[in-house]
């Protein structure tokens, strides 16, 4: 184990990726503490407000405690233009560890001040805070799906490969049938049958299940291939002769041999789940408002005006990019360490 990490950290990209991911997960873990606003906060008078500017040098050129100004919204009726201007009459100083509504936050601003580090969205919600809360969904959806995919895939592939014969044929035909349906359409069809009366937690859970339903078949097939070759090894026959039950042989003797493949497959398939969630949300079938996920926040970036005039709405895209890239780079290195000749395309 220690050797594994030593090797891992030798690689520059793996090191950076690993720490990026650790930082991302820490941030979303402490989202309640770090985010200046709660997930339900919204300020109607400040929809699409640009990011607050935080100043450390005041207007006289002197160093100062960081402060910011609020924005005022103006509407210009002939052009139908909404304009945000700074209200320079009142400075609001930033505060470390303030108590807001009985809870301590990492940072905040004096009473009456508004601090939107990454601006606000169409409903006047703080994009920065929503990014943190949205990360909770986007960054965990993959892991949770894997928790379903792996046991099913391992068991299914293990049984199919171990018993062989008609069991194998039947099980593999079914898995192939699932694989034969183009996964993206299957994903959409399944997302569309989700019952409509669900709470957001239930919906999140079911989306995880759906993502898992797409992934298990391919995984099971690879496991089955590995089991086919492992089951003829000496230690399996030895276990059989001492009368171990089939299930025990599969679970205790055969499946552990696939560990390194499983680890590689895990790191390399998480990014595809993150991307799948964003694709679903793009079509309006993923996580729904008012809950945040990076995918459904990025939906606002479809609009031409938003890309040009409100670039802060693109930040969820950047975070998806960083997370996926980190997982990919990390997975590559892990594969090189555990199984340098791996041929399995995942």
């Amino acid at each position, binding site marked *: 184990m220690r050797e594994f990490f030593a090797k891992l950290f030798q690689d520059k*990209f793996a090191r950076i990726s690993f720490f990026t991911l650790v930082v991302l997960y820490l941030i979303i873990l402490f989202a309640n503490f770090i985010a200046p606003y709660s997930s339900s906060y919204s300020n109607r008078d400040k929809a699409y407000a640009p990011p607050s500017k935080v100043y450390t040098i005041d207007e006289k050129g002197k160093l100062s405690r960081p402060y910011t100004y609020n924005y005022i919204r103006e509407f210009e009726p002939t052009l139908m233009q909404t304009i945000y201007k700074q209200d320079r009459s009142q400075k609001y100083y930033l505060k470390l560890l303030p108590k807001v509504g009985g809870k301590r936050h990492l940072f905040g601003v004096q009473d009456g001040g508004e601090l939107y580090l990454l601006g606000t969205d169409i409903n006047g919600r703080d994009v920065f805070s929503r990014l943190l809360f949205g990360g909770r969904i986007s960054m965990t959806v993959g892991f949770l799906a894997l928790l379903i995919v792996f046991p099913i895939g391992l068991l299914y592939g293990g049984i199919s490969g171990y018993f062989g014969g008609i069991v194998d044929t039947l099980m593999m*035909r*079914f898995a*192939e*049938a*699932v*694989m*034969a*349906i*183009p996964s*993206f*359409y*299957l994903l*959409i*069809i*399944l997302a*569309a*049958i989700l*019952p*409509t009366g669900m709470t957001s937690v239930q919906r999140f859970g079911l989306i995880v299940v759906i993502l898992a339903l797409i992934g298990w078949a391919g995984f099971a097939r690879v496991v089955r291939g590995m089991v086919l070759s492992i089951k003829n090894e000496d230690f399996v026959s030895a276990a059989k002769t001492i009368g171990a039950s089939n299930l025990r042989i599969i679970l205790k003797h055969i499946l552990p041999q696939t560990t390194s493949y499983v680890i590689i497959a895990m790191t390399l398939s998480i*990014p595809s789940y993150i*991307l799948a969630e*964003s*694709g679903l949300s*793009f*079509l309006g079938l993923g996580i729904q408002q008012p809950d945040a996920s990076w995918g459904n926040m*990025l939906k606002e*970036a*479809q609009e*031409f005006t938003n*890309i*040009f005039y409100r670039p802060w709405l693109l930040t969820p*895209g950047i975070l*998806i*990019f*960083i997370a*996926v*890239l980190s997982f*990919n*780079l990390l997975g*590559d290195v892990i594969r090189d360490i555990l199984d*340098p*000749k*791996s*041929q399995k*395309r995942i």
Partner: protein
Amino acid sequence: MEFFKYISKRILQVIPLLIIVSIISFFIIRLAPIDPLAELRLNPSISQETLDKEIKRLKLDKPIYIQYISWAKSFLKGDLGYTSAGEKVSTKLKERIPNTLLLTSIVVFMTWIVGIPLGIFAAVKKETVFDRTLTVVSSVGMAIPSFFFAILLLIFAVKTGWFPVGGLTSYNFNEFSLIGKFFDLAKHLVLPTVVLFTISLSGLQRQMRANMLEVWDSDYVKFARAKGLSEFKVIFKHALRNAINPMITLLGFEFAGLLSGAALTEYVFQYPGLGRLILEAVMKSDINLVMASLMMGTIMLILGNLIADILLMLTDPRVRGTK
């Protein structure tokens, strides 16, 4: 003889697969609480009688299994039925298939032409700056959500004016000369190709690299290198021939993907391909259209696997024995 027996056995295996796929997909689509007539229902000027007529025509008043049986019957007769809007499914598919084939075959061709050599070089130059850079660059390509990348490229097209904004042909396409037509098509195809190419390149390149590495470490390559053969000769005469075999299986998968299209990319680029058609059909529960395209996708997948297997048998004598 052995060969034909194998092929006919494979073809027979296809039938249960098709049946399972069709049952699974038909039932999950019909279980969805999606009303194929939603748009009609929300149109205040459409009367109840019109709705009743449509419900009868689409057999929505019948239980699901009867709907399935009547679909399966006409499918066996080669009749794909009508879409929920009343157009022939076969004509709809015929309109879109050439467009999708055009795009996907260009993308597959490009990725193979670029990805295979890159994979080889990355393996030969393993752990050098070149290899590392390539890994990172291709990971970057894989990490951008395809629809987001497509949107950014569209904006790029608008701002530079170098490329048209989506679609496949300009509106006065038919008035162009042959060369003009060619360039018009090419101009429209660049951006979607870039998106799909970026996404699929890295996978292929990594796969080729892995294959090559495996062969590279094998005894006969080591031996060939020890003999003092030139690097070039070793790569192309000894290593490559063995490393490319697993890629043939992959080619089979690529073949299957030719017709399933890339829905999100097609959607953002307004590309008149199958992917967008199926996407829209799925969202509207347009059962005949969805089923026809799913069946087509399944058949393509099986065909692709079959072709790959045959190619493997022809190129690699070892495989023939094990099958």
